[in-house]
């Protein structure tokens, strides 16, 4: 079904050329095999469309559109991460992982060429996640980032900074954290049209604080699939800020594979202009006695759209699971749209679960309260938005 590729990935000739080129670039044989099977699989699938739940509220045509066709009025200050002092900064650009200099002894980075095939995380992407299957097919940059336990928590800054900004860049970051490691990872976008797969392969007793800070101008796009494999006594805090962009599409999959762990996530999604943002969190409570706490705060302005969802699946026997899903949404204009529905699928008996979702405008009474003290309406709205977001600030 080559038609699919013509439609949304790229021209078939271009794709063939690219795969040839990658061979010439001495891509290891095992990875070429993975690509071949991804190619076979993707040919059996339909292109992303509004019939898929995760693409229902996104204009899929934007995947192939020229970026300069998107009008921008909002500009977001991007943080210059390369100036961070107390962090190891990994810049991802055309030359791969750069900017690291000499690796500290707690950090090992192996690119595809020198990582072992056994470390490659196998996904079983379905049609909902076909854009990430495309990543399996076309991944250019990435590798295995292994982090040992240290006496002090360590900070890693990942920055996407490509010179060429029109073509999709396919990246895979596989983080492997050793027993007891305490790590803060910040992931930021500077430039580039990004499709990334992040794998967080955690050992017991890991403490991971992860911040996903994706601020895009109205012509930029970013797709991510983020997998967290969580064993025993692990604490993960995942703070997401998704601001702007002609297209942002984020999927978070959390697998509890043992017991006694906690996953907390906060997402702040803000859209303007004609932005489309999708933010999906799927938590699998396959084992007993784990806790997940998912908070989303989404704010849509102008003609923008946000789809945000949290889903928890609690397997048979996964008793003492605690699940909280709290999704709140604010529409700042009559043309903006937000869709949000928390979902709980529980097959265990003893589970504590709470979920809720609201959608509305900013609270008029509170706005009036602020204005009655002399604060003008724009500033009062900003303060209300700040107030609305604060429960999603998990770290």
């Amino acid at each position, binding site marked *: 079904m080559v038609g699919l590729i013509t439609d949304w990935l790229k021209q078939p000739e271009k794709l063939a050329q690219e795969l040839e080129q990658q061979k010439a670039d001495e891509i290891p044989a095992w990875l070429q095999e993975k690509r071949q099977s991804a190619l076979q699989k993707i040919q059996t699938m339909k292109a992303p469309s509004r019939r898929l739940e995760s693409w229902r509220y996104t204009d899929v045509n934007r995947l192939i559109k020229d970026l300069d066709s998107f009008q921008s009025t909002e500009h977001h200050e991007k943080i210059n991460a390369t100036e961070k002092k107390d962090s190891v900064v990994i810049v991802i650009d055309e030359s791969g992982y750069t900017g690291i200099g000499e690796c500290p002894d707690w950090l090992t980075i192996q690119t595809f060429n020198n990582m072992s095939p056994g470390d490659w995380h196998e996904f079983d992407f379905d049609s909902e996640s076909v854009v990430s299957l495309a990543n399996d097919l076309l991944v250019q940059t990435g590798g295995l980032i292994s982090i040992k336990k240290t006496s002090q928590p360590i900070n890693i800054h990942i920055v996407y900074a490509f010179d060429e900004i029109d073509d999709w860049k396919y990246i895979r970051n596989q983080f492997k954290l050793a027993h007891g490691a305490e790590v803060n990872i910040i992931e930021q976008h500077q430039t580039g049209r990004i499709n990334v797969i992040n794998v967080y392969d955690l050992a017991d007793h890991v403490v991971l604080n992860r911040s996903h800070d994706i601020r895009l101008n109205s012509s930029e796009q970013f797709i991510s699939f983020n997998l967290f494999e969580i064993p025993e006594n692990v604490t993960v805090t995942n703070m997401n800020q998704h601001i702007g962009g002609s297209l942002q599409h984020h999927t978070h999959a959390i697998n509890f594979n043992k017991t006694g762990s906690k996953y907390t996530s906060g997402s702040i999604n803000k859209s303007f202009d004609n932005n489309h943002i999708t933010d999906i969190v799927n938590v699998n409570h396959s084992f007993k006695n784990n806790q997940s706490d998912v908070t989303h705060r989404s704010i849509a302005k102008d003609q923008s759209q946000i789809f945000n969802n949290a889903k928890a699946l609690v397997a048979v026997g996964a008793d003492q699971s605690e699940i909280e899903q709290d999704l709140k949404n604010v529409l700042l204009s009559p043309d903006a749209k937000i869709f949000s529905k928390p979902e709980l699928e529980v097959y265990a008996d003893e589970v504590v679960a709470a979920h809720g979702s609201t959608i509305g405008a900013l609270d008029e009474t509170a706005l009036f309260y602020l204005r009655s003290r002399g*604060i003008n309406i724009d500033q009062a709205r900003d303060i209300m938005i700040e107030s609305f977001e604060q429960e999603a600030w998990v770290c």
Partner: protein
Amino acid sequence: MLKIENVFANAGDKEILKGLSLEVKPGEVHAIMGPNGAGKSTLGNLLAGMPYVQPQGGSVQYMGKDLLSLEPEERAAIGVFLAFQYPVEIPGVNNMYFLRTALNAQRKYRGEDAMDSAQFLRMVKQKIKDMNMRDDLLKRPVNVGFSGGEKKRNEVFQMGVLEPKLAILDETDSGLDIDALKIVADGVNQLRSADRSFIIITHYQRLLDYIEPDFVHVLADGKIVKSGDKNLALELEEQGYGWLNN
């Protein structure tokens, strides 16, 4: 200072104020009493500019200005303050930040310089002391987790910081024990001056034991039906509002 003439106003789609008139001169304290649902809060909300309350007729002059044509924030900047009957909680917004933002917004509107945080802190600490309040109030988010009494005291504290010319207190005494009531009354009495006026909406005569009003009015069915001096409050306390139905 304030001249309300034959005002009609709706709350939502309900007609609430029906030809209300009231004049308040500088330095005066007016108490407004009346049965539930009479329109007392609607009057306060109308003066402060709540969008839900829509004027339908009549006029309100405040210091030579057409008050009803101004935005709520403009009214605040020229000295109108409403202590809410139900103060609003604003999670995640620190009381101190909120008050400084408000004060500086008002000062800017009036063409005055902004207060920096050190100046502001000094001023606010002094006010807290003068008004016998606890200073942990400042660090907490606006009204979040406050008891009913703390919320009311916070309103009076805001009034103390913002130093309005016309303060409207909407049942600030409701739900207060006697000590809290005294704190609130002290806050008002400290602010009383020849150029500052108060409209005190209350259900009970007891607040007026501590804040002596110049006039007492009865508001019923959207208008002032009776006015007198502080003795009227005592009469009302004894008789209730049953006589209104005759």
